């Protein structure tokens, strides 16, 4: 390219080059000397047409390259650097089209000036101008906010978010919480945001237990970053934390080590366990579903629902009072071993081997679930997880629980929340469910009661206002129907082997490569509006993500557990004389 070609009209960053094919969907741009283009830069060019208005072609830079023109051999670079061989360094950028306006798919003319898109042109190129409600997600590489179309998050036109990436580096949970913060605080959802609820399962460490504590390491630069996104930097204002009861503690105090105040313990009473038929969730492993004893599980659950009578915290079955989960298990096993009663409990056509397999696993669950299913605590004491009566953000801490118990809690909680939304019949208020390790709860192979609930949410949640924000290390191991139902797909740092899977087909090759070295805080977000995933950096959390970051606790959490409970519920019940509200 000669110099006079570059110094043409306009102050672009380059020109469409003609040595590679220019197509309506992707084209190469030669970068003018003294200019540069980096990945993710937004550019725009025009194509004049003879009989109609000019077409504006906008796109995102998906690859940049530089080479010595005039060099034939690799070793020529030494002669060039030595100053003996004349050569020109020429940079070129691959542009993937994001928008053609008007929609007239013609290639840009080689030689056409390419401009950097700024301001309105950038917003148009990335379809932000068509978004009626834009949720800020973070900053693009150019330091300008990048938005998410709220229509694809709140169920208007789509719902659900799928976040993939290596654990620890990909900052999946941080992004999910930032997204929630943005949804609640940006004001984009208007009145809906006030009533919208979030249910977050905390599976690793006590990371998410401090959402309502301001981050002590928050600095002015981060605050400015939040301000640029139109957000106030702060903690989540309205958070309720639920933790399982401590093992072996008869008073049911929550099992948390770092957060000492404002934590409620959650558990299910034996009568709830029997009446709500929660037994199948004890066998929520996909491995369990393949076994023959599923029949027995449902038959025993039905028997419990029919015959268990609430009795002062515990239940009484066939005249026997059972005060704990271990008692219940022992009773069931005893009844199953008895030839006379086995038929009533397990059904008649079940072999002894199958019954024994069931019994073996049921006994195995005693240790894991004993502290969650209680007969010794007051029934009237608030102990259930119910987002509609809870704070805006409900955090359920699972990290201390063994695998089987985690599945039980997730399965039962999701089921009850979904059933509640189903009964309400309206999509509003929205409920966001944040669940990490989705590949564990909804694996691609097999089926389990939890997977059924999650599939229900993925497929019908959109109309019922239940938005699943799922995170997983490997989207390839998650049930395909859940991934395909997610309108918004987010990718952080990926494992190299994982990145080549078809689940990430939405990433162009260059971005797929970049995802292998994405640093914490960098995400690639694909939304249905924009044909190219956007690379963004979301700001450092303004809330504490660990105890060392936690600033002063908000005043509400300094109240004791019993104060946090509704005092009138206790007083009005009149039965809990052992549970004085102060």
């Amino acid at each position, binding site marked *: 390219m*000669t110099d006079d070609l570059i110094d043409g009209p306009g102050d672009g960053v380059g020109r469409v080059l003609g040595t590679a094919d220019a197509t309506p969907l992707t084209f190469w741009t030669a970068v003018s000397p003294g200019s540069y283009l980096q990945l993710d830069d937004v550019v725009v060019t025009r194509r004049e047409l003879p009989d109609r208005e000019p077409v504006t072609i906008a796109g995102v830079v998906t690859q940049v390259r530089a080479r010595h023109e*005039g060099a*034939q*051999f690799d*070793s*020529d670079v030494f*002669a*060039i*650097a*030595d*100053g*003996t*061989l*004349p*050569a*020109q360094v020429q940079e070129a950028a691959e542009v993937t089209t994001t928008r053609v306006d008007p929609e007239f798919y013609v290639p840009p003319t080689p030689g056409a000036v390419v401009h950097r898109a700024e301001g309105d042109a950038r917003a148009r190129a990335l379809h932000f101008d068509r978004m009626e409600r834009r949720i800020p997600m973070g900053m693009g590489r150019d330091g300008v906010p990048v938005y998410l179309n709220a229509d694809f998050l709140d169920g208007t036109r789509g719902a659900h978010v799928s976040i993939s990436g290596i654990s620890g580096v990909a900052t999946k949970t941080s992004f999910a919480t930032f997204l929630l913060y943005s949804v609640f605080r940006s004001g984009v959802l208007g009145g809906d945001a006030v009533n919208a609820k979030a249910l977050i399962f905390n599976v690793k460490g006590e990371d998410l237990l401090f959402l309502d504590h301001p981050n002590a390491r928050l600095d002015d630069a981060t605050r400015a970053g939040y301000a640029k996104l139109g957000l106030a930097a702060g903690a989540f204002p309205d958070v309720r934390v639920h933790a399982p009861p401590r093992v072996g503690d008869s008073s049911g105090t929550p099992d948390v080590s770092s957060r000492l105040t404002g934590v409620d313990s959650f558990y299910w009473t034996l009568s709830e366990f029997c009446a709500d038929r929660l037994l199948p969730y004890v066998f929520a492993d996909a491995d369990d579903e393949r076994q023959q004893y599923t029949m027995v599980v449902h038959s025993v659950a039905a028997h419990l629902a029919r015959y268990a009578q609430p009795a002062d915290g515990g239940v009484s079955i066939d005249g026997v009072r059972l005060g704990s989960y271990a008692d219940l298990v022992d009773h069931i096993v005893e009844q199953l071993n008895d030839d006379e009663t086995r038929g009533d409990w397990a059904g008649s056509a079940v072999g002894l081997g199958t019954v024994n397999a069931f019994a073996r696993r049921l006994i195995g669950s005693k240790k894991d679930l004993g502290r969650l299913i209680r007969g010794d605590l007051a029934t009237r004491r608030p102990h259930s997880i119910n987002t509609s009566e809870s704070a805006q953000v409900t955090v359920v801490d699972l990290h201390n629980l063994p695998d089987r118990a985690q599945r039980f809690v997730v399965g039962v909680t999701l089921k009850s929340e979904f059933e509640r939304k189903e009964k309400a019949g309206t999509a509003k208020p929205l409920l966001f469910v944040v669940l990490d390790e989705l590949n564990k709860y909804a694996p691609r192979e097999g089926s389990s009661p939890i997977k059924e609930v999650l599939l229900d949410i993925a497929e019908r949640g959109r109309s019922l206002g239940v938005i699943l924000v799922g995170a997983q290390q490997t989207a390839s191991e998650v049930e395909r129907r859940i991934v395909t139902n997610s309108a918004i797909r987010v990718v952080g740092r990926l494992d190299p082997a994982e990145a080549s899977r078809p689940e990430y087909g939405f990433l162009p090759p260059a971005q797929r490569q970049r995802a292998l070295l994405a640093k914490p805080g960098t995400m690639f977000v694909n939304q249905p509006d924009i044909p190219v995933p956007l690379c963004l950096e979301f700001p450092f959390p303004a809330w504490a993500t660990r105890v060392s970051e936690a600033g002063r606790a908000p005043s509400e959490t300094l109240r004791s557990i019993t104060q946090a409970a509704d005092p009138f519920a206790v007083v009005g019940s009149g039965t809990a004389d052992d549970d004085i509200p102060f």
Partner: protein
Amino acid sequence: MRFYVDAWDPAYGASFEAAGGGGPAAPSSAQVDADVELPATDWRAIGARPDVVAPDVVLLVDGVRRIDASVWTAEDDGGSYPGIAASYAAGVVRCDLDRGAAELAGSKVGRGLFTASPSAQDVVAGSIRYPVHRVGGTGELSKLPAAVQAPLTALEVAVSDAVRTDGDLLVVDGPLRSRRNLPRTLGYIKTQHSQYLDARLTTVVTGLAPGQRCPVFRLGTAWGGYSWYLRLPVAGGAPWAGIVRMECSAELTETEAIELADLSLVTLPRFASSPYKDPRAPQNLIPIAGLERRLRGLLGDARLLHRVLIGAARAGRR
């Protein structure tokens, strides 16, 4: 104007690239004064002088030419003249050895229709124009390529004038000819067609080690001037391998000519090309090779121009 484009690719018509790098074939009749630097009886190889340093900026000038098409004109009297449509380009590379950057400091492209036809007019095809260069005499096809040299040399002078700075050294590819008035200018002749020196002095030349030169001598030809041979770094031991002849203006004093000769000895060897990269190594200097590639690129695509000319010929006949 009516003309026809020869269907043959012009490359088959007349190749006027210099033939390969053998030794000088024909003895020259030119008078040689061999006693400029050293008495002829005392001739010996001269190495680089340690106190001479290469200039920071070396400019190298070269031109390329290409026949885009051979044409035949159709005269009103029924006769016909041959002609060639040629593209030529000249450029100058500025090697800033201090900064370690070689760049194309200037380039110009010219085109022309070379013919003896009295009726010939400029050929215009789209944005491309071949102005007529009328050639004297009968205008045989075989003589026409040489006619391109004059405008090309003029173009080379024009581009090199534009980029001169103080303290630089200009190396012209080929004999100096009409360019001998440029200051600090060397002619660089890589193909030896004539044998200027007698047999005894020639043995001094063929006996040069790489990086050595023979003493300066003066040529008595019409384009005469000071001249010397030097051997570029070369692996083979053939007598004329890597030998180039350098020229400088006859108007310089003998001392100035010897200074230039010493300067050439410290400057040129580093530009020598390697055999596996360049078929004319080492004489075809690296910057010149790079420049020629760039210039050929600037000439435009030969097939495209051939097609354009055919189109113009067809339009002209209508």
